[in-house]
């Protein structure tokens, strides 16, 4: 009877890890050092690559914003796919915008990102900007916002259809109104 019971996945994983460790211990010491070295190098380079790629994406996105835009800030977004409840994860940022200023919000998806990022700008009482028109299905890479009320605004970013993805939103200053 017992043999028909499914083996829990965490036990399977432990078995897998034990076999990897024993295989590692069975190799020659010199090879062990070699494997460890590559592992350390891999971990080190992956940290660096991640930081560099988001920085490169921000730079690319700032250039995409246009010649009339002066870069102010970028927000890096990394979100998992929607869970079982179907609700799309979202990331929220708070920023202060000033009266008599025109801003541009530009979104750029990372290379290989499964999801397409969309954003909304709202304050405590109202939604002002959305880069996605749900009725037409159209998305906008950039949206300008002419601010007439100084205060805190919230930038909410998510990925269409609850997909996993990574992106950058760049906020630029356009002009004094």
């Amino acid at each position: 009877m017992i043999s028909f019971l499914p083996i829990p996945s965490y036990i399977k994983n432990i078995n897998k890890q034990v076999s990897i460790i024993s295989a590692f211990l069975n190799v020659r010491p010199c090879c062990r050092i070699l494997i460890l070295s590559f592992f350390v190098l891999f971990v080190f380079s992956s940290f660096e690559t991640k930081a560099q790629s988001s920085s490169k994406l921000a730079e690319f996105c700032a250039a995409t914003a246009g010649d009339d835009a002066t870069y102010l800030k970028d927000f890096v977004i990394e979100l998992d796919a929607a869970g079982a409840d179907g609700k799309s994860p979202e990331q929220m940022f708070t920023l202060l915008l000033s009266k008599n200023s025109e801003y541009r919000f530009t979104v750029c998806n990372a290379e290989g990102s499964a999801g397409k990022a969309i954003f909304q700008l709202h304050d405590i009482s109202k939604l002002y900007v959305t880069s996605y028109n749900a009725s037409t299905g159209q998305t906008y890479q950039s949206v300008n916002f002419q601010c007439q009320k100084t205060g805190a605004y919230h930038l909410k970013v998510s990925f269409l259809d609850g997909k996993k993805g990574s992106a950058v939103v760049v906020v630029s200053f356009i002009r004094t109104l």
Partner: protein
Amino acid sequence: MVRKISFIAIGVLLLSVCMYVIYINSSLNIKDNLNVPYEEINKGVVDVEEEAVKSITENISSPVEIAALIKSLGVPFNKGFLAPTEYADNYSTNYAQAFALGVFSADLGYLNMYNKTGSVIDYLSTIKKLADAINVGQYFDFATLKRLAANSANIDSLKYISVHSFNQMDQSLRQRKRGNLSSLIIAGAWLEGIYITVQVAKNNTDSRLTDKIGEQKIILADLMTLLISYAKDPIFRNYVSEFNQIKSKFDMVQITFEQGEPITIEENGMLTVIQKDKSIVHVTTEQLNDISKTIEAVRERLIRK
């Protein structure tokens, strides 16, 4: 053969460990070269949640906007508004260095906005010196900035890298639980930005300038929340006390709000949203003069430290 492989492997291992140590040193080395003991630096930091600090600091407006407003009014460039870089050698604590870093960053924004690439190098090297002193110099690509400043055609790249470098410094300080220094950079940049604005307002009565000064009440309220969170530290408390003097003058300013529905227009594929809500600043000439005098006095005391 086995020995050869062992030597290579040990070599690779040593190299990777060295690279890792260099990486850790460049990004996390916070004990070296500090004039204030490390324990002092971190006092009060635990009281502020990282997310709370993040939401406050992202609220503080950029000196770029103030410089753009001044330029749009047709006000000519005035070097006399800038903080003298000679003061930079006098700053003996990390607090003073961080604060001055903010001040000179606002000056850099003003210089960049007027395309004054000739004077930029002096400010860039001062900023680099101060950034190194508080161990965030690695985020300030001085060589590239200096090269860009040599040619006024590179002004857009210069603006981008300057602002991006400051954002990275700010992020790094907060990640390394040195939000107290980050908040002083922000405070310095804010004070210098508003100082330049009040200087311009002395000879210009454009309502947008008056609005810009008056609305700083909202921004200062956020900044005070940030500064007060580190006020357990006696050295830091002095900055809070100085900024409180400015805040007391802004308390007299009234800001009211009007409601309206936003309008969306699409032109050449670009979507523009025009806000119809309005914030209205009510400030008298007397109040403006009071604000102006207090800002000048506080700035004078803080930048001479």
